[in-house]
């Protein structure tokens, strides 16, 4: 997947978890948990959502790499 595809995927997954959140204002290096007010349940659901669409099973130890949009792009590329 390229960067644009991954970002579109994240937007799709987050749209189901935090529909009221405005992804347009989210910076690549911003901590999404803070910027979008995601709690640990929301974050887990995001990881599950990414897993269901990509087949990638992210170990819990790697969660901190997924806190930013840039981190997710790097991880799934």
């Amino acid at each position: 997947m390229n960067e644009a595809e991954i970002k579109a995927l994240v937007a799709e997954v987050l749209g189901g978890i935090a529909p009221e959140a405005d992804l347009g204002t989210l910076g690549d290096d911003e901590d999404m948990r803070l910027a979008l007010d995601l709690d640990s349940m929301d974050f887990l659901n995001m990881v599950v959502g990414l897993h269901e669409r990509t087949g990638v099973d992210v170990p819990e130890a790697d969660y901190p790499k997924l806190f930013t949009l840039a981190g997710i792009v790097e991880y799934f590329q």
Partner: protein
Amino acid sequence: MPSLGADMESAILVEWSVKPGDTLRRGDIIGVVETEKGAIEIEVFEDCVVEELVVAVGTEVKVDGVLARLRGTREAAAPATAPARPAVVPPPAAPPAAAPREPVPRAVPPLPSTRVRASPAARREAKARGIALDGLTGSGVYGAVCLADVARAAAAAPARKPRGGFDPAAMRRAIGNAMSRSKREIPHYYLTQSISLGAALAWLARENESRPVTERLLPAALLLKATALALARVPALNGFFTDGEFVAGKGIHIGWAVSLRGGGLIAPALHDADRLSLTALMAKLRDLVQRARTGGLRSSEMMDPTITVTSLGERSAEAVLPIIYPPQVAVIGFGSVNERPWVDAGRVAPQPVVVATLGADHRVSDGHRGGQLLAEIDHHLQHPEAL
């Protein structure tokens, strides 16, 4: 119309899921009502046949008002001239004697197929803008219609006159009413206890290493299970204060406080939490939070929590002094988890620490009993492998 919480006075019928002549089993959905806290699916509490749907969709009905007339399937059909039996949907404090609500393990309820799922915020916005939800494609969890879907539809459609009645402060007012009643009537006492989560979180990290992402546990599941097991040992804090006396809860049904995006709070029940495995509890918790946010809660989840637990989660305050949700007699709070100096066997070492708090009703218990409950929660969290 069942009371779906101490703060509810009435609700609007938004859908009938059945028609006269239909046979229903206990737990089946008969219809959906719109409350200040979103849409709730109404269940029937015994096997029955629908005789008459009394009110039309769109009608506002007060609590205890008749929605429908049902006939128990164990009764003979009523003679045509006899008045039909009143609705079996019971008021909250007095379930019909014929249908004891003994706790039974419940499967995750199937998703209803007929009703449009929508978040409370989307429902309000659609109502305010006069947009029909069933014409929209949902992009949310379970295909629920989200605020963004409504906004898209609103942008695409020519402006229409709002149907009115939209009150963004309704939920806040409902919470205010319930909490005012609580502060007015309930003599609260408060206890707090710092609990080391070192053992629990280390066990959790090891456990999650071997679990697929879909079955991973959150610390919240451990806090919930520890609380449920503690309540089984200290049942005096699990139940209701009604008609001047304590009535013990039949089962440990923990109301889990879920903050709704866009504001507000709702605390639906996780039934028989003490009897569920951590895996099952976690699955139920995820399902419950998602349904709370997409308007798919069921009446039984709103009617029978025997205690409330509120967990602030990360990036929040380190302790909460919570207010009891009447007619419950206790509420338990967990603050955020923070690294703190901790003394163990004469040595100071950093440990993840959570502050557990109890707000309890002095008409029912005292600090001694309350302290036992917090000590039990602490004890269970030191032995996570046994949760």
